[in-house]
């Protein structure tokens, strides 16, 4: 079963994509071959010229490499077409293959940058020291030659879906059978690059450069013979026996190759120039034949896979259809919103803390430590911002540092305007006797201070709690809520219930605790009584 992947309709028909893909790929590959071959021939000529001690004289390698810039640019630009077409036309095999070989696929960028920088530096500079030339040439060529290796591996992977599970289990490597096929196919690309680059540079050089032209022709002839030998092995290593269409295309290509080598041998033996008008059709038949064979063979894997994927996608699209309009409505509402503090609260806080900020919500019921009752919280802007930015460890309260400062300030202002969370806790609603006050102070110092600290800041022990107790010097609650928490404890945390203490001692504790935060506020409320 193939995962449904491509849920949009194809913009043009399958046949149109196949034809466009062939044409775009042929153009791309022609310049790829010339680029590769230019680099290979140039380095070979550089080494042989150096060997013969003729570096001060004619430099064929320089003349050849000077064209690298144009070839590689065309190869890259013309590569966009086939890449887009294969993505649109055959997304499942293509994307499966690049994912199965992801590290190599990503490496392409590094390889191409290295190769282009080295080769164009050598091609465009007039004077480069021999040793530097050799080092950069070898480095650039190695990086450049790795590129078709990766592309061939991707295509081999894409064409063999029955081996995908194996490649995934292998960890980004082809299994051995496919590696042999890959090797012959890769070498076949390199052989072709020498043939087509040799032909290009032959016709690009002046007719009077006879020695250079003869040398280039020998490269082309050698390349074609190499291709014949390699082609036999490539044929033998095909994962599946080629079908009739593929074989017919191969035979056409071979005919072109035979025609071409006959022309070249005649030119070499008779020492006459190779005629462009004769060589071009032969080379074209060779290239078109071989590329047709490539695509026919590839489509045997791609087409059934893509049809199946299309069918599944269509089914899946029908399943999703009923959900589309509601999803779109939600999206449209979302992008129309203008987030002020109230909206940010409603969106980012209310699902736990509740619409009325009282800690009651559907989600809060899922929590061992329920969400805080924000309406009864009394704290400072700085503390509230710190909690918003850092969250509370051990609870569900996350960090909100992804919100902009203005959104965070908006939420704080909203909470203050509606619930007065930044104001003082207010007066205690009952009179606490002197005795109860003393007892409460004693209880706080002996019991509460173990965790809450003598001054309200968490102690060394309690800082590691999940969650740690709040810093009572900057955070408190309304007196009633503080009384309730002291009486019943805080669910899910280390805060126990003190319902066994006499009520007025508990109120005394409220007074002590609120006094930790803002002594002057408490004093004021007392003097007001």
């Amino acid at each position, binding site marked *: 079963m193939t995962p449904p992947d491509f849920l949009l309709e194809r913009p043009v028909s399958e046949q149109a994509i196949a034809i466009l893909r062939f044409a775009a790929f042929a153009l791309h590959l022609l310049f790829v071959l010339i680029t590769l071959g230019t680099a290979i021939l140039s380095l070979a000529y550089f080494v042989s010229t150096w060997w013969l001690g003729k570096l001060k004289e004619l430099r064929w390698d320089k003349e050849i490499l000077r064209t690298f810039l144009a070839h590689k640019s065309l190869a890259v630009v013309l590569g966009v077409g086939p890449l887009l077409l294969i993505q649109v036309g055959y997304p499942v095999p293509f994307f499966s293959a690049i994912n199965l070989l992801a590290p190599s696929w990503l490496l392409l960028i590094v390889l191409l940058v290295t190769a282009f920088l080295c080769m164009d530096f050598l091609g465009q500079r007039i004077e480069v020291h021999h040793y530097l030339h050799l080092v950069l040439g070898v480095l650039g060529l190695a990086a450049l030659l790795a590129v078709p290796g990766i592309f061939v591996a991707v295509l081999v992977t894409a064409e063999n879906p029955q081996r995908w599970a194996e490649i995934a289990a292998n960890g980004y490597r082809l299994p051995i059978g496919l590696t042999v096929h890959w090797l012959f196919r890769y070498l076949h690309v390199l052989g072709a690059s020498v043939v087509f680059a040799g032909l290009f540079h032959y016709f690009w050089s002046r007719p009077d450069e006879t020695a250079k032209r003869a040398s280039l022709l020998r490269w082309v002839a050698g390349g074609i013979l190499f291709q014949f030998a390699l082609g036999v092995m490539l044929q033998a290593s095909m994962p599946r026996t080629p079908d009739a269409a593929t074989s017919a295309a191969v035979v056409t290509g071979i005919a072109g190759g035979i025609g071409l080598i006959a022309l070249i041998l005649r030119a070499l033996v008779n020492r006459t120039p190779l005629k462009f008008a004769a060589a071009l059709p032969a080379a074209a038949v060779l290239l078109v034949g071989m590329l047709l064979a490539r695509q026919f063979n590839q489509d045997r894997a791609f087409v059934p896979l893509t049809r199946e994927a299309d069918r599944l996608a269509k089914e899946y699209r029908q399943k999703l259809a009923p*959900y589309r309009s509601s*999803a779109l409505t939600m999206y449209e509402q979302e992008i129309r919103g*203008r987030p002020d503090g109230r909206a940010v609260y409603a969106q980012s806080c209310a699902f736990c803390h509740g619409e009325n900020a009282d800690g009651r919500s559907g*989600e809060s019921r899922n929590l061992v*430590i329920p969400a805080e009752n924000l309406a009864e919280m009394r704290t400072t802007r700085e503390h509230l911002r710190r909690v918003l930015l850092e969250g509370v460890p051990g609870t569900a309260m996350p960090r909100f*540092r992804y919100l902009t400062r203005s959104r965070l300030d908006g939420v704080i202002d909203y909470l203050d305007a509606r619930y007065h969370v930044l104001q003082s806790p207010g007066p205690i609603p009952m009179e606490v006797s002197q005795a109860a006050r003393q007892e409460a102070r004693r209880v706080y110092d002996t019991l509460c201070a173990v965790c809450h600290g003598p001054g309200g800041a968490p102690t060394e022990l309690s800082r590691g709690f*999940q969650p740690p107790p709040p810093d009572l010097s900057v955070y408190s609650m309304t007196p009633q809520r503080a009384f309730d928490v002291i009486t019943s404890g805080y669910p899910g945390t280390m805060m126990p219930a003190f319902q066994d203490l006499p009520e007025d001692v508990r109120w005394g504790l409220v007074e002590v605790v609120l006094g930790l935060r803002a002594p002057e506020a408490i004093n004021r409320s007392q003097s007001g009584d």
Partner: protein
Amino acid sequence: VLLACVSASIITAILGFMLTPGGWPADRRFWHAFLNPSFLPQLVVRLAGSFLLGGLIAAAALLLYQKEEKLRREALPLLGAVVSSCLVLLAGGLWWYFSRLPADFRDQSVAAVLTSRFSQMPAVFWIGNAGGLLLLLVFCGVALGGAVRPAQWLVAPALVAAFAFVSEFERIREFIRGPYLMPGYMYANGVLIQERPYFAEHGMLPNSPGYLLSNPQGDPDRAGAYLFARNCAACHTVGGVNDIRARMAGRSQDGIYVILGHTHNMVPFMPPFSGNDDERRLLASFLYRLTRDEIELESYSRLIPAAPAGRTRRP
């Protein structure tokens, strides 16, 4: 130049479409996609920006490489005029561009540049931008006045500022798409917007053929790892950049469960969780145990639990 502008307008249409698809999500019309709301303003911004960069590069070549004093004095005010008019055009284009963006997206622009590390210091953004703009304006003034010496000093910093503005614009444009890879079509994790309600009802795992093949026994850790891969791994890694374990550290399992249901509410650019309630619990448990090192993955890049015995690698 004409063909280059045509190619720029095609690319601008694509980039604009990826941020403001306009009516396309509803009607899938090509021209609605191409002529999307931010297309024209962005085209103005891009063309003005390119000519601005071109003017500055020409000025740099003139001031730093051209030896002929007379040519320098004559050409500098001309290039100054080009750069200043581009700046004016650019300012207008940017205002137009940002006014065409949904408020919720536009709101993220400052955060896009500052990243979450500096998100609470918006002054950095405004001071930095004002500084860059001032530099360009001073360069324009100097160039228009034909003052070769000061222009020689200013041209390189002005060029750097101009490139910084280009990068900033691209960063904002890429970032402010909120939780979407393609607004109105696909979330950043590759889930289609209509898949979310579908998965909420029917589950994500039973609708993932690849997963079903890979986990025939229904191992819960494998299921959790798959839910992580589909929902989170587009942005979060295990043990690398944006490590999920660092994000989840200190959260309780019930807390993770609740947070999972509201990722999009809490973080403006995070896609919502896709899956049904059981899957949300499964992923919460997976993430909780992963964070506590109770689950080992095979490697950074292979998000499947390590084999119990033998070859285990700690990510």
